C-alpha cells in the first residue's frame, strides 16, 4: 500500500512539473531568440560571451536575445554543411572564410548581405578582410578577425630581427648547427599554406584573376627555387618539419626564428623570451615583402534563418568598435575593425600590433570551392620538390594538370 501511494504521488509530481515546464515559458516565448554557433574556447569564448551579454542587456526591452552555442572545432564545418541547409542550424555562425565557396555552391547555407551593407559599415573594416568575405562579387559575411603568419624570434639568440632575406640567411647561418640539432630558421615549409608567403611575394599563387589555376607559373617556380636554396644550399632549415617539431625546437631554444601565426604563441613555453616582427622582404623578388595568406573569421547569416534582419543587426554589433575592443583585449584576437587599433589598450599590446602591421601586406586566402582539390596535388608537389625526386617545373606541371582535371570534372556542365 505504501509503495503504491508513493508511486502515485511521485507520478503526480512529475506530471505537474512537466506541465509547469511546458506552459510557463509560453509567456517568455514572446522574446525573439537569435542562435549563434561558434567554436571558441577559453579566453575567446569568455570575450564573446561578454559582448553577447552586453547586447542582450541593451536589447532586453526590444525582446531580442542572443543564445550562443559552442561547438568543437573539428566537427564544426561538417555540422554546418549537414544541419544548416536542412533548416536545423543557427541564425548566425562564426567561422573562417576558406569554406565559403563550398557552402555557397552547395546552396541554402549562407545568406548574401549586400542588400543590408551600407558604405559606413563597409568602411569599418580592413579592405582586404571584406574582400575575403566576397564571392563572385557578393558579400556573404562581416569579417570578425584575421590570422596571419608572421616572424617570431627568440630574443636571446637574435638581438635585431632581419628585415631582408639576405639578412635572414646571414643570421640563420650563424645560428645553425645541424649536428647539434640547432637551426636558424624553422617553419612548416612543407605545408602549402606556409609556402604561400613566398609564392605570393613573387606574384604567383594558386588562382589567377579569372579563377583559373596557375600552379606552374614562373613566379611559383621562382618561389620554390628560393625555398630549395634555403633548405639545400644554405641548410638553415630542418628536415621533415611537422608543427610538433617546430614547437619543440623553439621551446628548447634550438630554433632561432619561426614563421607562424597566433596559434603558435599559445604553445610557447614560459621561459622563452620571444619577439614578433614583420616577415622580411625578399631581395630575390626586388624587395617585395613576403605576403602570407590571411584567414579571416567572419560572422555569417544562415540562409534558412527566420530572423535574418535581426541576425544581421547582431552581426553588425559583433563587428563594431566596442565589441572589437573586447575581443582584442580579453580574447586576444586581431579584429578586422580598423579603428580599434587606435585604442590605447590595443595599441600598447606588441603582439596585436605586430599582426596588424603584418596584415598590411597579406592576401586573403582563396575562398573558392575548388580550393580543396588543390591541397593534395600541391602537397605532393611540395614533397617531391623537397625530397628532390623531381625537378621543380616538372612537379608543378603535374600538380597543375591534376588540379585542372579535378576542376573540369567538378564543374561538369552541359
Amino acid at each position, binding site marked *: 500500500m505504501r509503495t503504491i501511494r508513493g508511486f502515485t504521488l511521485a507520478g503526480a509530481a512529475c506530471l505537474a512539473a512537466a506541465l509547469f515546464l511546458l506552459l510557463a515559458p509560453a509567456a517568455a516565448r514572446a522574446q525573439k531568440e537569435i542562435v549563434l554557433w561558434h567554436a571558441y574556447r577559453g579566453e575567446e569564448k569568455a570575450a564573446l560571451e561578454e559582448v553577447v551579454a552586453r547586447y542582450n542587456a541593451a536589447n532586453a526591452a526590444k525582446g531580442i536575445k542572443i543564445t550562443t552555442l559552442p561547438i568543437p572545432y573539428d566537427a564544426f564545418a561538417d555540422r554546418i554543411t549537414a544541419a544548416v541547409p536542412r533548416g536545423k542550424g543557427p541564425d548566425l555562425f562564426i567561422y573562417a572564410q576558406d569554406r565559403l565557396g563550398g557552402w555557397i555552391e552547395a546552396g541554402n547555407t549562407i545568406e548574401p548581405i549586400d542588400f543590408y551593407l551600407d558604405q559606413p559599415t563597409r568602411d569599418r573594416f580592413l579592405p582586404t578582410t571584406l574582400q575575403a568575405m566576397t564571392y563572385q562579387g557578393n558579400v556573404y559575411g562581416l569579417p570578425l578577425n584575421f590570422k596571419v603568419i608572421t616572424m617570431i624570434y627568440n630574443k636571446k639568440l637574435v638581438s635585431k630581427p632581419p628585415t631582408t632575406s639576405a639578412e635572414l640567411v646571414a643570421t640563420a647561418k650563424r645560428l645553425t648547427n645541424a649536428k647539434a640539432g640547432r637551426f636558424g630558421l624553422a617553419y612548416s615549409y612543407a605545408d602549402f599554406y606556409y609556402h604561400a608567403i613566398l609564392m605570393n611575394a613573387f606574384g604567383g599563387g594558386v588562382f589567377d584573376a579569372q579563377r583559373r589555376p596557375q600552379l606552374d607559373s614562373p613566379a611559383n617556380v621562382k618561389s620554390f627555387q628560393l625555398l630549395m636554396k634555403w633548405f639545400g644550399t644554405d641548410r638553415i632549415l630542418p628536415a621533415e618539419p611537422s608543427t610538433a617539431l617546430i614547437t619543440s625546437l623553439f621551446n628548447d631554444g634550438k630554433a632561432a626564428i619561426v614563421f607562424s601565426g597566433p596559434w603558435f604563441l599559445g604553445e610557447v613555453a614560459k621561459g622563452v623570451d620571444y619577439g614578433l616582427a614583420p616577415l622580411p622582404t625578399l631581395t630575390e623578388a626586388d624587395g617585395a615583402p613576403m605576403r602570407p595568406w590571411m584567414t579571416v573569421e567572419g560572422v555569417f547569416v544562415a540562409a534558412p534563418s527566420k530572423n535574418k534582419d535581426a541576425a544581421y543587426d547582431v552581426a553588425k554589433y559583433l563587428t563594431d568598435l566596442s565589441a572589437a575592443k573586447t575581443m582584442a583585449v580579453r580574447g586576444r584576437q586581431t579584429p578586422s575593425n580598423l579603428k580599434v587599433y587606435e585604442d590605447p589598450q590595443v595599441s600598447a599590446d606588441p603582439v596585436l600590433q605586430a599582426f596588424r602591421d603584418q596584415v598590411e601586406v597579406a592576401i586573403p586566402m582563396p575562398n573558392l570551392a575548388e580550393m580543396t*582539390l588543390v591541397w593534395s596535388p600541391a602537397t605532393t608537389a611540395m614533397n617531391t620538390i623537397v625530397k628532390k625526386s623531381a625537378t621543380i617545373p616538372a612537379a608543378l606541371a603535374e600538380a597543375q594538370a591534376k588540379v585542372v582535371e579535378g576542376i573540369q570534372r567538378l564543374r561538369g556542365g552541359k
Partner: protein
Amino acid sequence: MTVPTARTITISHRRRILAGLALAALAGVALLTAGLVASRSAQREETARRLGIVRVQALAQSLDRAGIEGDAARDLVRRWAASDPSLHSIRVIALSGISLEASTAPDDAGARAAPRRLEREEKPLYDQGQRIRAAAETNREEGVARKTEIEIVGGEGPDGRLEIAAPLEREGVVGGMVAATTAKPPTGPRRGIALDVALAVVLPFLLFWIASRGIGERRGPLLATAAALLAIAISFLGVRAVGTLAEERRAGEAAVAQAAETEAARAARLLAETAADWAALGVTPTTGTPITTAAIDVDVYRRPYGGAAAGTPGAAARVARDAGETARAVRRVAIGIGLLALALLAFVGLGAAARFGATLRRHREAYLYVLPAMLGMFVLVFFPFIYGVALSFTDATLFNTDKSIPEIWVGLRNYGEILGDFAIVKQTESGAVVNYLNFYWTLFNTVLWTVANVSIGVSVGLFLALILNTRGLRLRPIYRVLLILPWAMPNYITALIWRGMFHQQFGVVNQVIQIFGGEPISWFDRWSTSFLTALATNGWLSFPFMMVVSLGALQSIPSDLFEAARMDGASRWQQFRSITLPSLQPALIPAIILSVIWTFNMFNIIYLVTQGEPGSSTEILITQSYKYAFERYRYGYAAAYSTVIFMILLVYGYWQNRVTRATEGIA
C-alpha cells in the same frame, strides 16, 4: 491439419493463366499509361516554360537596348504591359543602386511607385538579381553552362502561372534584372488515350478466353498464347504513345515559333515608338541590332533552345532528333514493362503466386516477428546501400547536389573509368613512373597490404599464444593483459605515435638505427619504406586479436591427444602439425576471414601513419575512395569505387566460404 492438396490440383491451368494475363495486362498497361501521362504533362510544361521565356526574353532584349534606368525604360515597360496583357507584375531591378526602376505591379503605385529603393521585404528579389548576375559571369568565365541564368518558378497546379526572371545586360555586363509573371497558358487540344488503354486491357483478355477454349488444358501453348497477346497489347500501346507525344511536340513547337515571331515584332514596334517619343525630347535610347527569334527562344542558360531556336533553319532537325530520342526511350520503357508483365504472368500462371500466398498464411506469425528487424535492416543497411549504388551510376559532385539522380545519370561511365584504366606506368622525362592514382596499382597495394598483415598477425599471434599456453607459466594473467593492450588502446592515438616514431630526424626508430651504426632512413620517401611503417603499425595492432583467438582454441584441445602422440614417439614439430594446427582451423579460419575484410578496409592506419605518402603510392582502395569523395568532391565516382570494393570482398567471401567448407571435413 491437412494441406488441401486435392483443391490445388483441380484449379485448371487455363483459369490460372487467364488470371495471370488479366493481372499482367492491367499492371503493364497501368504503368505504361502512367508513364505516358507523365511524359505528356512534362512536355506541356516545357512548352509553357518556353512560351513564358519567349515573352520575358523579348522584353529583356528590348530593355537591353532602351536602358535599365531612366524614364525611357519605364515608358517601354508601360507600353509593353499595355500591349501584352498576359504579362503581369513586370518589375525591373537595378543592381548597383539596389533600386526598383520600373514596375507594373498593382502594389507599386502612389508612394511606392518606381523608381525607389527596394525595401527590406524585397531583399529576395535583389538577391535573385545578384544570383543571376553571378550565374551569367560564372558561365562566361568557366565557358560551361553550369548555372541557370533565367530563373523560372511555378507552372504546376490549376494556376499554371510562371514567375520568370531574366538578366539585363549593357555592353556585356549584367546590371539588372527583369521579373514578370505570365498568365496561365491556354491548353492545346488533347488527343484522348482512354480508348487505346481500354482496348489494350480488354482485348487480350477476351481473345485469350476464346482461344483457350480451343487449346484446352495444355500449359505450354496456353502460356505461349497469353504471352504473345500481352506483348502485342503492350507494343500497340507503346506505338500509340509515341504517336501522341510526337503530335503534341509538333503542336508545341509551332506555338513557340508563332509566339517568337509575335514577340519579336512587338519588341521592334514598341522600341521604335519609344525611341520616337524620346527623340523628340532629345534623349535617344539605342535601338541596336534587331531582335531575332534566336535571341528570344532560349533555354535557361540563354543559349538558343536545343541549339536551334523555333523558326530557325535548324529547328526541324532538332524536332526530328528529339522525336527519335523519345521513340527510343518509349521503346526501352515498353520493353522493360513488357518483361515485368511477362514475369508477372508467369508468376501467377504457373502457380508460384498461389504457393507463395500459402506459405505466408502458414507462417504469418513468424513473418510478423521478423518484420521489425527487417524494417530496421532496410532503413539502416539496404536503403543506404541501394542509394550508394544508384549514386555510383551518376556524376554527382559538390556542384550538382540540387539535381535529381536521373538528371545526372551517366550509366557505367564511372565504372569504365575505374576498371578500364590500364595506364599503370607513365613515361615521363625522368623515365617510367608508376601512376599511383590508378585503380590497379591501388588494388595491388591493398592486396599486398592485406596478405602481409594477416600473415604477420596470424604468425605472431599464434606464436605468442603457444608461448602463453605453456603449462605452469607464472604471471600468465599479467602477460595476457599486456599483450592485449595494443588492441585495446584507441588506434587513432597509437597510429599518430607510430608516425612520430618514424620521423626522419627525431624519431625513435632512426635513433636506434643510429646507435647500431646505421644511416637514418627517411621512411616516407619511398613506397617500400613507407609501406613498412604502416605494416609495422598494423602488425603491432592486430596480433592481439589473433593471439586471443588462438589461445582460446589451443586451450580447448584435449591434452590426452598430446599424451598419446608423445607416447607414440611423435616429435614436437609433428605434434604441432598433426594435432595443433588442424584443431585450430575451425577457430582460425573465421578469424582470418574477418581479419582479411577488416584489413582490406583498414582506413585509420594508412590515413594516419603514411597519409598515402609518397605521392599517393601507399593508398589503399578505401582511403582513395575517401579522398575522391571529400577532397575532390566527386561523390558519384567515389560511390562507384566503394561498390567495386564491395564486389571484390563479396567474391572473396563467397570463395573463402566454399573453400573452407571443403576442408571442414578433415577431423
